[in-house]
């Protein structure tokens, strides 16, 4: 299984300006909640999943994706079981197992939204270099001190994750067992896990402060940026196409089109 992280590539989505992508991620997420027609939502969700498949065909190997699909399937099944509104579509003569139009529509709506958000998030993460996004946000006005909070968090997160794994293993080789004992013991073990992790994080933060300030961080209220990347005609084209497509979807959803 691979971690969910940026995967270098040359697709249109990879070439989009990170801030453009971030804005469209937010717009698409809102759209998933605006669409109420089950069929439109299914089309939208399918397109998102298809896009995800096209940019990363081995999506099954990314950690968490199968779990998300399974969660979606369970949600759909629960709606079929417990939402009995509308017409009966399948009637096996056992009330709990009967399937109604209400259950199908509500199930499709909730699962569609859930999977859309998952697919959009995966697309964004797989095609966007996180530091590029932070630099993009800083260029459009975010104070660089806050922007670098994001960059350093992105830098430290995988290191602390690895340290957490090492600390857990170090606990195991000292005979510590998470599968034995009650809640009190478990709380003690978590405390014993968190103490070295927290101390290590604080030490790293301390060294990072020296490293950053030692290289002039904070000397001036603004700074220059090496990256000269700006939105291109591709961003404009994609934005126009998406705007038209979403307008049609919304008009269809609210019955404004014949």
């Amino acid at each position, binding site marked *: 299984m691979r971690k969910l992280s940026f995967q270098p590539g040359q697709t249109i989505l990879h070439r989009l300006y990170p801030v453009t992508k971030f804005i469209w991620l937010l717009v698409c997420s809102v759209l998933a909640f605006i669409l109420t027609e089950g069929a439109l939502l299914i089309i939208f969700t399918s397109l998102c999943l298809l896009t995800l498949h096209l940019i990363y065909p081995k999506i099954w190997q990314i950690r968490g994706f199968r779990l998300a699909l399974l969660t979606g399937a369970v949600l759909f099944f629960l709606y079929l079981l417990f939402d009995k509104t509308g017409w009966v579509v399948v009637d096996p003569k056992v009330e709990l197992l009967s399937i109604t139009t209400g259950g199908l529509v509500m199930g499709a709506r909730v699962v569609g939204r859930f999977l859309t958000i998952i697919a959009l998030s995966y697309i964004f993460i797989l095609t966007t270099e996180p530091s590029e996004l932070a630099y993009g946000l800083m260029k459009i006005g975010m104070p660089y001190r806050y922007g670098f909070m994001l960059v350093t968090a992105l830098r430290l997160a995988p290191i602390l994750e690895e340290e957490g794994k090492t600390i857990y293993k170090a606990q195991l*080789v*000292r005979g510590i067992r998470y599968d034995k004992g009650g809640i009190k013991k478990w709380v003690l073990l978590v405390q014993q896990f968190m103490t070295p992790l927290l101390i*290590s994080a604080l030490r790293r933060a301390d060294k990072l402060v020296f490293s950053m300030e030692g290289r002039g961080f*904070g000397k001036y209220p603004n700074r*220059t*940026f090496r990256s000269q990347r700006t939105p291109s005609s591709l961003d404009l084209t994609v934005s126009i196409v998406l705007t038209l497509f979403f307008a049609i979807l919304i008009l269809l959803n609210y019955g404004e089109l014949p």
Partner: protein
Amino acid sequence: MSWIDVRHFSYTYPGKQEPVLRDISLAIERGSFVVITGESGGGKSTFGKALAGFLFQDEKPNCEGRIIVNGVDMTQIPLYDASQHVAYVQQNPEDQFCTLSVSDEIAFGLENLRVEPKEIEHLIDKSLAVVKGLDLKGRQLATLSGGEKQKVAIASMLALSPDVLILDEPTSNLDPDATLHVFKTLYDMRQNQDLTVIIIEHKLDLLLAFNPQIFVLESGEIQPIHDIQDFKAHISRKTYALPKANTEHTIQKVPFLKLSGVSVRLESYPILHDINLNLSQGEFVALMGPNGSGKSTLLQTMMGFYTPENGKISAFGEDLSKLKTSSLVREIGFIFQNPDHQLFTQSVWDEATLTSKNLDILTQDQKENAESYLTSMRLGDRKDEHPQRLSYGEKRRLNLIAVLLHHPKLLLIDEFLIGQDMANAHAWMKFFQDYVQQGHTVLLVNHHPDLTNQYCDRIIFLSEGRVLIDQHVDKALDQLGALGFSSFVPENKEGFTNA
């Protein structure tokens, strides 16, 4: 006036009574290649940070004297100005990086100083060229090897055009090949750039070829070294006495660990290939190999943390895959690289006895053992202190007590000697040798050819995830030399000393 002029400088850490640096005076000329060595905890890193202006950011730092670099008093300037005079490269480059890619990292300081983007690109290329790392441009930091990371850390400081470059144990995590490469890069750089380079380092033998100016800093006081052989001959010999075992081990014919055709894949990348080896009673084995060859993965596979894709591992005659880690702990002690990651409790005494308590074997005998271990490791009077308040060396000793108290038959140890001075390194190797002579087995990941030659019985050498050599030390060193791994072979097999 000299390029670096330190006059009667003393420094005391906040909250401490005793100064860590005492009345230090020295002069270093421009373009010098300087090495500062000395025992662990003697104040070397503190002095490096003082030269770089790191210690004077409090309103009233507890210091006396002056540190003048190229006419600038480093005790009087804010940190964000200090790096334009003196750049300080930390021991672990991972601690220094604050971005995700090589170019962003080198550009970071320049961007803060509002250098124009075009000029930044030029300076990135220039800095990478100086450290012979132009091929690294465009790479993500996470994909670099230890040696490559060190080059980027140095380049990111060089980009700021400092007058002096200080490196705090820059090669402590590197194999001998990478170490030599870093030293050569620094030496060439100092010659070509007219830069003053100060290296805080224990690996004197590898540095002597570059004819450096050497200072020894011990107990807060600094002295120049004129005769290195005389200095090496007078290095104090520390010892860590191993308390006698209360239990007698019987001779065991079954190998403690047996790996047959073991291959391991992590996140779909193959790491270990077709590993075949045995670890038997009474062996002191060095596990060696270049950085990234799979040593730590092999050690953790032996402990059952990674499931082999192919092959079989048996521990004390039983299939390892059917044993729980908690049951292995009685027979196998495991020590990780970083001491901070393996201290969990609120007192030194609790830490020392934690494993035995978890295994339900904390008898009166064990408690007496703990007392004698703590005393022999000079921690007897610190039983009630929080383990995280100990020094690096003291934490290392506590890690060892915590694992050794119940006398596991096999010790698996990952890079125990990192950051240890020469006297300590010898003392630990002797300690492990004594433990082996009590009927136990030790497998130690080790980068020091001379110490391996002097103390170990056997070398397992990994290269690209395969066992390249598994031989008695003498034969293994001969083979390593013949295969072109000469930096892993001590120059003189008799009494060659270096940590």
